[in-house]
Structures are given as C-alpha cells and as structure tokens.
C-alpha cells in the first residue's frame, strides 16, 4: 500500500497528446477515479504508471519513490482490464497462481494462497476450468483475484465493468467496493461512466485533452463543476446550458449576474432542478414541450426554450403532451454560472 503521484507528466503518440504537464497525487488507501471520454488517454496513464509505456517527461512515484526507471515487474502494481486479460492457455488456478509463481512461491504455500483467494471470491469450484469456459462475471472475478492475490502497492483498474451486462455490473461493482473497504489498497480506477465514478470514488479527476479539468470529491464535482465540460460530463441527464440573455428582464435578477453583461455568461441548470409547471405559473420561463420520457415516479421532458433544447423534470407528465406550452421554474440557488467564452465557472 502506498501513495501514488504523477508529477508534470507529458506523453504523446505522434500528434496525439495524451498528457500535457499533468500532475496528480493520490493518497495511500484512496479510491481514485480517472473519468474522461473515450480516447482521452485514460488507459495510457495507467500504462505509464505500470511501466508499460515510457513517459516523455515527468516523474511517477509509488510510495514516494521515483519509479520512472523501474521496470514493470518491479513496480508492485496490479491491473484489472476491461477485456479481463486472463491467460487463455492457463486454467483458473494457474491464472491466480501466475503472479505468485513469478515471485518464487510454489508448492503448498502457493496452493493455500490460491485456494484462500478463490474462496473469498467464490471461485472455489472453477479452479480447473479454462477462461473460455467461464461467464463474463466469473472471468472478472478471476481477474480481480489475480490482481489482489499478492497485495500490490496499488491497484490499477481499466474500465473493469464495461464488458459486463447491467446486472453483473452492479454485482461486481459492489465486489470491488467491498475489496477496497477490506484491504484499503490504493486504487486508480479508469472509467468513462460518471455514475460508476460517483458510486465508487473517494476522489475523481475529470480528464480532457491531456490535462485535468477538475479533481474533487464526487459531491463537490456535482455541486460545483469547474467548467461547462465537467458540468455536462458529471450527472445524468447532463446539465442544461443556456445563454444568460434568455433571462432578460424580469427574471434576470441583476444581482445574480453581479453586474456582468448577460451576453458573457452561460447558465447551468441541472434537469433535476428545473421543474416544469403548468402554463401561467409566475416567475418562470415559457417553453414548448417536444418529448416526454416517463422515468417511473416522474417524467423527463425535453422542451424548446427560445431556440435552446432543455431537459426538465415534471412530477407527473399526465396532462402534458408534445406541442403544449409549459413554464420552467427553478430555485435561485440551483443556478450555476459560467463564463460564456472560456466555459470556466464564475464564483458567486
């Protein structure tokens, strides 16, 4: 177990910039999630830390030690992959035993370790099977076991849930959380699924174009997104972004914009905070309903607000139909303000 740090890391593949002067510090025992869209370089960051790819510049530390020149097999990290990456020519027992054998363990001690690990993950009956004879969930359990079995300094997980169906995904997600709570191994977890990130993380770093857009606890990320990119990326459905000019008097309380020119401000409103009322409600914006999406206890509706598509919530969608006029209301405190040009958050 150890703290992990990336210090001023740069990495590019030809013209593709994967990391540009990137710094990250992950505390000992922390569950840290790297969140970013597909192809933004999340996997590459894990490969850098594991020593598979060399960085162009910068220093990586595990437990305070600079590991930049240490070969992968000596970095003491373990990895779990989206593709499971079980060795197809070895059975489950040998897959679990593989990292131990590489450290010189054999015989009875090895067997005991493997069987203990298989027991905790419920794999006892599968030890003689080949990976191709296992279901997706079983494969990912074996992969977890293979990573966990030697108690690495850090755990690297690259979208371990992406290949699983919805039910299994929740099951293995809980398993991962349980493993982390029992062993408290520093974990660097990569995903493009913000819900997964929120559910698992102590802290989340949102990546964009080789740098960190924001690094914060899940609640802070949700409550105070640093820019419009994070605002749209975190939270489902994504936050509505509207030109502040829409709030032209009477709604634009001049105080809320703090005297800024409405043309230079973008408003952020989460669909959860935008309540669709019946026509005629006061102090609200008029919009035309385009679509209704029942969500169980309530209904999402997509509406046209002076030319901008917005998503809003309605306690019950019963009396609304596409084409109707509705009024969208929100609490003053739920508005996020961003600079229209840079997308950065404006502090209130």
């Amino acid at each position, binding site marked *: 177990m150890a703290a992990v740090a990336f210090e001023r890391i740069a990495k590019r593949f030809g013209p593709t910039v994967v990391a540009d002067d990137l710094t990250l510090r992950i505390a000992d025992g922390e569950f840290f999630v790297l969140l970013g869209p597909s192809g933004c370089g999340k996997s590459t960051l894990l*490969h850098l830390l594991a020593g*598979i790819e060399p960085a162009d510049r910068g220093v990586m530390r595990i437990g305070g030690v600079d590991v930049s020149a240490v*070969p*992968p*097999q000596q970095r003491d990290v373990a*990895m779990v992959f989206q593709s499971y*990456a079980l060795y197809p020519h070895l059975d489950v027992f040998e897959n679990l035993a593989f*990292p131990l054998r*590489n*450290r010189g363990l054999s015989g009875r001690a090895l067997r005991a370790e493997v069987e203990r690990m298989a027991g905790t993950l419920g794999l006892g009956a599968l030890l003689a099977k080949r990976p191709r004879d296992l279901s997706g969930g079983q494969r990912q359990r074996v992969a977890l076991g293979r990573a966990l079995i030697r108690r690495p300094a850090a755990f690297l997980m690259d979208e371990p849930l992406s290949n699983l169906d919805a039910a299994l995904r929740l099951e293995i997600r809980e398993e991962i959380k349980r493993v982390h709570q029992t062993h408290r191994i520093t974990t660097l977890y990569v995903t493009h699924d913000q819900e997964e990130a929120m559910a698992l993380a102590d802290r989340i770093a949102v990546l964009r174009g080789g740098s960190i857009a924001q690094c914060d606890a899940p609640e802070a990320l949700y409550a105070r997104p640093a820019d419009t990119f994070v605002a749209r990326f975190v939270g489902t459905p994504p936050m509505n972004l509207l030109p502040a000019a829409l709030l032209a008097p009477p709604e634009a309380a001049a105080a809320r914009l703090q005297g800024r020119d409405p043309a230079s401000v973008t408003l952020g409103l989460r669909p959860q905070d935008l309540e669709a009322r019946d026509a005629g409600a006061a102090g609200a914006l008029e919009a035309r309903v385009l679509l209704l999406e029942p969500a169980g206890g309530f209904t999402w509706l997509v509406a046209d607000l002076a030319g901008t598509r917005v998503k809003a919530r309605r306690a019950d969608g019963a009396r609304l139909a596409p084409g109707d006029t509705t009024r969208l209301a929100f609490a003053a405190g739920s508005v996020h303000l961003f600079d229209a040009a840079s997308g950065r958050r404006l502090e209130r």
Partner: protein
Amino acid sequence: MIRRLGTWLGLAAACAWSLAPFAWQVLTSVKPQAELESLPPLLPSTITLVHYEAVFAGHPFAHLLLNSFAVAACATALALALGSLAGFALAKLRPPGRAATLAAVVVLSMLPPVATVSPLFLLAGAAGLRDTLTGLALVYAGFALPLAVWLMAQFFRSVPDDLYIAARVDGCSLLGAFGKVMLPLAVPGLTATGLLVFVFCWNEFLFALTLTSSTAARTVPVGIALFPGIHEVPWGEIAAASVVATAPLVLLAAVFQRRVLDGLTAGAVKG
C-alpha cells in the same frame, strides 16, 4: 443443379491438373526399366522398387537427405527464434520507426537471390563457410528472416495487448512475458511460419548450388538437378529421388493444411 455440376467438374479438373504431373512422376518411379523405354504402356505392368534401391545404393542420396534436413531444421530454428523476438518487439513494444523497419524487411524479401550470390560466395569463402552446412544454414536463415519477422509480427498483433501488459504487471520480465505468455499463445503462428520457412529451405537451389561443392554439404535439390547419368538420363531413378524429396513436404502440407494456408495468406489479405 447445372451450376452444381459445373462446379464439381471444374473442381475435378483443378484437382487433376494439380495432381497429375506429380502422380505421373510417382508412376514413373515404380515402373520397371523396360517399360520406361517406350510409351505406351501408360501404367506399369508390375510395381517395382528398383529405382528407389538404386537411388539409395548407388548414390550418396541418403547423405544429401540428411544434409537437407539438417540445414532446413537449423535455419528454421534460427529464423523462428530471431523472427519471433523481432516480430514480438515490433507488434507489442511499438518502437518508433517500426513502420520503416517493416518496410525495409519487406524490401529485403524482394531481393533477387542472384543479385547477392556473388558477394555471398566471396564472403562465405573469406569466412571459411563455403561448402559447409553452417554457411548454408546461415544464408537460409537470413533469406527466410524477412518472412519470419513479417509473419510473426502479424501473429503477435492478433494477441491482445492486454495480455502482454498483464504478464508484465504480474511480475514477468520482458523475456518472461515473451516466453510464458506471448509465445504459448502464438504457437499456431509459429507452426505456420516454421512450415513456410522449412519448405523454403528444403527447396532452395541457387545458393545450395553455388555455396557447396561436395557431397559433404550438398542438398537434395542440387543432387536431383545434377543427377548423374553415365550414358543416358536415368529417368526412373530421378523420379524415385523426386518422390523421396517431395513426400515429406506433401505430408507436412496435408497434416498442417490449416497452418500452411494461414501462413501463405497472413498479411497479404489483412494488411
């Protein structure tokens, strides 16, 4: 129905055209000498093995077979060892300049052998490797390497990157990951590459002709090309020798049909 019939007729014709010349050689090899001196008869009246006996008794043919096997086996082993290491590095470590390296390898595989036979003759002489099995095996390995590197790079590319990464993270050194994970997964590719390289070495003629001068290092193709005849050409014996030289390859091709097809078409079709 008519199309089906046409397909079958066409297939039968293609198979007959492919098999007939070699089948004729097999027939020739078991015909009594008298029946070789006129035509007809097409088919032998009795089957005789005298030509086979003559090949092995009268000539150092067994020695040539042994030479051919030794040279082809050593060259194949060398080409596989070096080719799989290089192919692995190109496919999984992706060094900068890999595209240029692969292109250079392909260009080298297109060299006409005649273009390098004179310098190799002089170089082999200078190194004391002329008329030795070692010299021949080295040259064959060199000429087979472009194919071996190219094919092994293709086969290693089809092993997922994640398996290599997992092996390294699980405690394998570079060579450990190669030996314990990558190589076992590339066995079909190794087999295909080995077969193609072996066939190339077994069949090679120009270098065998120029770099060897005695039975000590001569190989089967040279033996068959220079088959000695005192008065007239000993067609029966040549046929017998041909069958002996070809049988191992036909057998290999039949047993490892799938692998041979993989090897012949890998890279050419996909990229």
